[in-house]
């Protein structure tokens, strides 16, 4: 059945691929993000391609006070919904810069973790009241273990993963499903210049979006995308700390 779905951070590369997948399945979409002009263009594109209704709303992750009003507007625009929420935004800070600059560090934690918790709590209450629907959020394999090269981002994502795990448990009694998405390296704007394009280890946003859409449909709890990251991370988690602390990656 087509549902109404709110996509937070809808200008991100993964979000654009995912909204195409969702629209292709006939879902009504509400695209939320900072750059409303860009979102409007994406909305028109989705309407032309898939002939579905697509709405646009301004949303700023760092505007905590505005979150409640934003959630209200989503319900208003979508009539009764939403039936689902997908959180796609995130920020990859420069590890060294954020390590030495508390402002950068706080901003990264705020965007990746605090704001996500605040806005998803609000949506969670609404979905729980209707006793159905889903919340899906993009965490990261980086949250599975803190590595020397990106543990500030990793800490935020580890927090997000823990939060989603608890939220899933809490909402399970209300019939609301929670999906934790853990992408590996994806060829997006966030990683341009940091990962090797064309390498078999780097996934396209389209590939990741396909996995996410499927996981939402099958009400999976945790999805690694592409799947091989599940095994890679299983091994990485098993490395004993005395050895792990010497690894430079």
């Amino acid at each position: 059945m087509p549902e109404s779905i709110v996509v937070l951070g809808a200008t991100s590369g993964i979000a654009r691929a995912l909204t195409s997948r969702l629209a292709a399945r006939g879902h009504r979409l509400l695209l939320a993000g900072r750059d409303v002009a860009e979102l409007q263009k994406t909305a028109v594109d989705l309407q032309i391609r898939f002939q579905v209704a697509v709405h646009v709303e301004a949303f700023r992750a760092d505007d905590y006070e505005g979150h409640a009003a934003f959630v209200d507007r989503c319900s208003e625009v979508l009539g009764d919904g939403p039936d689902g929420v997908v959180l796609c935004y995130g920020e990859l800070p420069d590890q060294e810069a954020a390590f030495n600059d508390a402002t950068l560090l706080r901003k990264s934690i705020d965007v990746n973790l605090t704001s996500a918790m605040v806005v998803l709590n609000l949506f969670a209450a609404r979905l729980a009241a209707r006793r159905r629907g889903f919340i899906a959020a993009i965490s990261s394999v980086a949250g599975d273990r803190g590595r020397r090269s990106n543990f500030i981002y990793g800490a935020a994502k580890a927090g997000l993963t823990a939060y989603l795990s608890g939220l899933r448990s809490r909402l399970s009694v209300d019939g609301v499903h929670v999906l934790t998405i853990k992408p590996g390296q994806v060829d997006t704007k966030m990683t341009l210049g940091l990962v090797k394009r064309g390498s078999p280890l780097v996934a396209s946003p389209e590939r990741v979006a396909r996995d996410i859409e499927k996981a939402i449909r099958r009400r999976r709890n945790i999805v690694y995308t592409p799947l091989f990251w599940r095994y890679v991370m299983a091994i990485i988690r098993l490395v004993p700390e005395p050895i792990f602390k010497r690894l430079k990656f």
Partner: protein
Amino acid sequence: MVYASELLSGWGNCPVERCDVARPESAVELRRLVMSDDGRSCISRGLGRAYGDSSLNLAGRVIDQTRLNRFTAFDPETGILTCEAGASLAEIMEVFLPRGWFVRTTPGTKFVTVGGAVASDVHGKNHHRDGSFGESVRSFRLLTARGETLDCSRTENADAFRATLGGMGLTGCITEATVQLERKSTAYCSVNYRRTADIEETLRYFEDTDAASQYSVAWIDCVAQGKSLGRSVVMTAHDAAPSDLPAALAANPLRLPIRRKRSVPRFVPSAVLNYQTVRIFNALYYARHVDGRKIVDYDSFFYPLDGLQHWNRIYGRRGFVQYQAFFPRETSRRGIVALLDLISAAKNASFLAVLKSCGRAGEGVLSFLSPGHTLALDFRYVPGIGPFLQSLDACVLRHGGRLYLAKDSQMSAETFAAMYPRLPEFRELKGRVDPERRFVSSQARRLRIAE
């Protein structure tokens, strides 16, 4: 602004150059990139299907526009589509063909962007009748180094329109284009195959059928020599009507059959394609195509090679050179024979050789085709290939012909200037639209287009 330093090449995998690549995902970002006044040049890149160095920029920046690929307006009454330059013909096909619309003119791959199709003023199997891609372009939007947005059409900024169509991205950054789509009642062509014994018969067959056929193209066995020189399989075709289709297809006339995905592995030994294997392939191809009529879907008819992903890898690590020459009508027979003679004398067989008759000249100042014939060939790149190609260049020039910029990677600035007599006019127009000379590619530098 984030740039990734990457090894880039065109579809021919040759040359390979390290370039700083940016891939904007919003209009604001694109604008910032184009306007960035750090003194470095930039060139747009789409899906990288130009064969040579048209979308490379060794000394400067490359702007990958493939993530700016949105449709911005479509009128289902008139079939007028506006899209961002990074949208591909494949996407247009996927979205609009089921609704009974498609572009009138398509090149031999659907993995080209609309921006690239404008910049190269590409052509297809219908050139003899419908001209090049530019004819269905109503307007486009050009972003200049100063951040100005020029809406270009035949009536507005007409000079910039003429310079940009076929202008290889050297006048500015094409951000959006408005294209007239054509009504289609099926996704199929009715194709007639006809084998000819030599070049004379091939050209005569074109002459006899061109007026009546919507599409025509000849595959030439360029290994055949002597009396059989230029023997071909000529395909003439037109869009199939629903009544042309067999019952099994007529139920869903606009649905394309699903193609099995096949791909070429990353590294193919260079020895796979040699004179002998190409000879065998050509002989088999000629033998297989008996005369007759067949219903063929658009994918198979327009894009036979798209079915094999990464087909460009079959030439091995060093890549290959595409060589597409145009000859004006008066000299085309002599020119083609002379070119084929040179090739078979050098025992440098081209795996694929395609001949096409051409109609009215493109509107772009540097548009490639005019009335006459065009012959497309490809050669495995080997380090000593230069003199051989120069002998071909001289032959083309001697017959009043020219080479296609979207395929070129080797010709000299002198050859280019001699082949494109309107170059001074182009330079003048570029100077007006892009006085900063921000838009430069490796090809433009090699051919001294912008100087």
